[in-house]
């Protein structure tokens, strides 16, 4: 591990020595910059089955809590606009468009009767279209719905996701393609909408479609022996590298990779942490996020209470930081630095390069159970 971290520092051009770090990187190890005006936004829950979209500042002070009709999941951010999209987690029926500054509801989305939202949404770069992953449950088929933000969020199209159980999706750097994590799990609302019905035959994949036509451009799957690795979450770096986190549906003792790197056009490259960390990942990854530099990505493992960090250039494991019940993960504007949140109410600033974790100072954050995903907004 030490070797890998030294290699990474070398890669970063900092000679492997802390004191030689450039100013920008050295500052990353300090406590939150009081000038940091970033706002973090996430689905959350109270103690009594009450659910919210909540925002907090860089110190962890809660700025607003907007009640939701049911448990949320991820938040889609409309570029250069106040809108954010909160879509109910699977099997979801509602989507709310909120004002990112106040939490006020600006529009409501209703899922068609024969579809269910799957918790993730992403906007096009021009902010006009919102794309949401959905389950066409009667046909065990994933779809991506398209909503026109400039036409009152009217549902204007629906594309095949080219897999079952689509979950997180992202725009590719060209802004014209969507990459979709098709988790492979078929669920049906008549069977609670969450229980997997096809584990023995599940076929997860990563698919890239044209966001205007829905045409499949690239697709990759893991080898058949690993077909129970549900590919659920992903992030895309500026150079088009896709990092993905898996959730294993097989035995606890099976030795399987939980992280993959994909360069479209090639195979998914599975990567693993050292055994003692891999084991503590507990066969389950939550959020995936690249840092501001695109050279590091973090993957949270809430069942193991860890956040793992990886070198995006070499695909090596870098380090891990304990984060009890931690799952939400957002990159700050500093290389190698992330903010993480937990279901226990914690918020941390985590430095992957120096392996450091600092609790956000404001205690108001602790009034909520922070849900799976976290987004950073520049205020």
């Amino acid at each position: 591990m030490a070797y890998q971290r030294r290699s990474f520092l070398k890669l970063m051009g900092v000679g492997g020595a802390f004191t030689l770090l450039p100013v920008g990187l050295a500052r990353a190890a300090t406590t939150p910059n009081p000038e940091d005006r970033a706002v973090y936004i996430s689905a959350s829950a109270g103690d009594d089955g009450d659910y919210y979209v909540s925002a907090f500042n860089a110190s962890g002070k809660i700025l607003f809590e907007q009640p939701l009709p049911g448990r949320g999941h991820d938040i889609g951010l409309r570029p250069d606009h106040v809108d954010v999209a909160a879509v109910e987690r699977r099997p979801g029926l509602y989507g709310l468009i909120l004002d990112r500054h106040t939490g006020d509801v600006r529009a409501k989305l209703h899922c068609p009767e024969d579809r269910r939202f799957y918790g993730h949404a992403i906007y096009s770069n021009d902010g006009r279209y919102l794309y949401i992953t959905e389950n066409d449950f009667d046909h065990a088929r994933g779809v991506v719905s398209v909503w026109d933000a400039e036409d009152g969020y009217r549902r204007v199209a629906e594309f095949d996701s080219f897999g079952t159980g689509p979950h997180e999706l992202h725009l590719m750097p060209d802004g014209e393609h969507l990459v979709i994590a098709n988790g492979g799990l078929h669920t049906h609302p008549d069977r609670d909408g969450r229980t997997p019905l096809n584990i023995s035959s599940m076929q997860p994949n990563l698919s890239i479609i044209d966001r205007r036509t829905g045409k499949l451009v690239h697709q990759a799957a893991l080898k058949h022996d690993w077909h129970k690795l549900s590919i659920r979450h992903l992030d895309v770096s500026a150079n088009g590298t896709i990092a993905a986190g898996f959730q294993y549906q097989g035995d606890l003792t099976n030795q399987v990779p939980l992280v993959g790197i994909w360069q479209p056009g090639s195979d998914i490259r599975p990567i693993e942490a050292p055994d003692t960390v891999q084991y503590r990942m507990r066969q389950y990854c939550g959020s995936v996020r690249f840092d501001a530099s695109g050279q590091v990505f973090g993957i949270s493992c809430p069942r193991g209470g860890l956040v793992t960090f990886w070198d995006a250039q070499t695909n090596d494991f870098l380090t891990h930081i304990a984060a009890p019940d931690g799952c939400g993960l957002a990159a700050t504007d500093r290389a190698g630095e992330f903010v993480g949140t937990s279901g226990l109410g914690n918020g941390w600033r985590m430095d992957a390069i120096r392996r450091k974790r600092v609790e956000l100072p404001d205690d108001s954050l602790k009034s909520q159970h922070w849900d799976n995903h976290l987004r950073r907004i520049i205020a």
Partner: protein
Amino acid sequence: MFCKPSWRTLLLSTTTVLAVGVISPGARADIPDENYQPVLAHLLGTVMPPKLDDFHAATENLTSEFKDFCSDPDKSGLEGTQAAFHAAMDIWQEIQPWRMGPLVANGRDQHIEYWPDKHGTAARQFRKLMFDKPAAYTDPEKLSGASAALQGFPALEEVLFADDHGDQMIAANEDGVFLCQYGTAIATNLGTLSGELQAEWPEFATAMENAGPDSMDYPTAKFAATDLYRALHEGLLIISSQKLARPLGDGEEDASAGRAESPISERSLRNIEHNLIGLFAIYDGTWGDVDEEGKGLAALIDNSLLDRSFKLNWQTVGDTVAELPPSVAEVLEQPDGYAALTDLKGQIDFLTTLVENDVGGNTQLGGGFNALDGD
């Protein structure tokens, strides 16, 4: 003979009665973090090290027995070596569920025992090995770099118990000589692995015992203790989902003792019996000579009635396993054998729910908003 229809009634009745007096975890105040520290210190610092010493001694003894047997092979020597195998395996099966730190480092648990072997890798590689008889596999150091399937207990089981391997070793024919040398190398390698485990444990235990906000591995004692709770919980899940569900198959006609653990040495259920001893130590803090009752996770449960009930339930399951023959094959040959194994699985599953609800709830180690219900 095997069916104990009363267990369900017994387990359910004790739990139901107790439920009246158990305060729901949600209504409890948080257990102070310092309360978890003595549990960590006891389990990791007092309970486990002597067992690792025992395991290392058992593997060293196994090596010694193997060498003695092979120097002048006879039936008595074979039986002595087989007994040494069982003694080492008994201790390993108690340690095995403590899946953490040095046990899993560098794939060590798989090198000690490669199982489950879904694709029959060990048998296939063993056949090829006996055909080629490569000298490298008689060198413990080189063997340690070979396939995990060929360097631990399952491979040794093939050597000592499969087919006519014992007779061949006694006859000291070409196959027998290779088997003796290969078996000695496996035993020596197990001694090395158990020695590494013994040596690495203290540093790992200290890191967990010194949990605190500055630790990037264990920021609180409670978080460290969660790994012990998980070992208890997952240990039961593994017994049910792998050690019993695999041989049970999809139904009585699909049942196969060959899919159980250690089928050749006919000790699949003996393994479970010893698993339960090691797992109970996590709860109670009592393990063999380390007899300090109530210093495990039980120390965090402020309800003596619930504690007694849990122990009674555990004892009931332990008694059930102990009354069964050690071999799954032998059980399945009985008219009601399949039902007996199914019944045992049901008991383990019920014990698992008690761990989740009573132990996990009352120790406050079983929760997690994201950990339990993510997406």
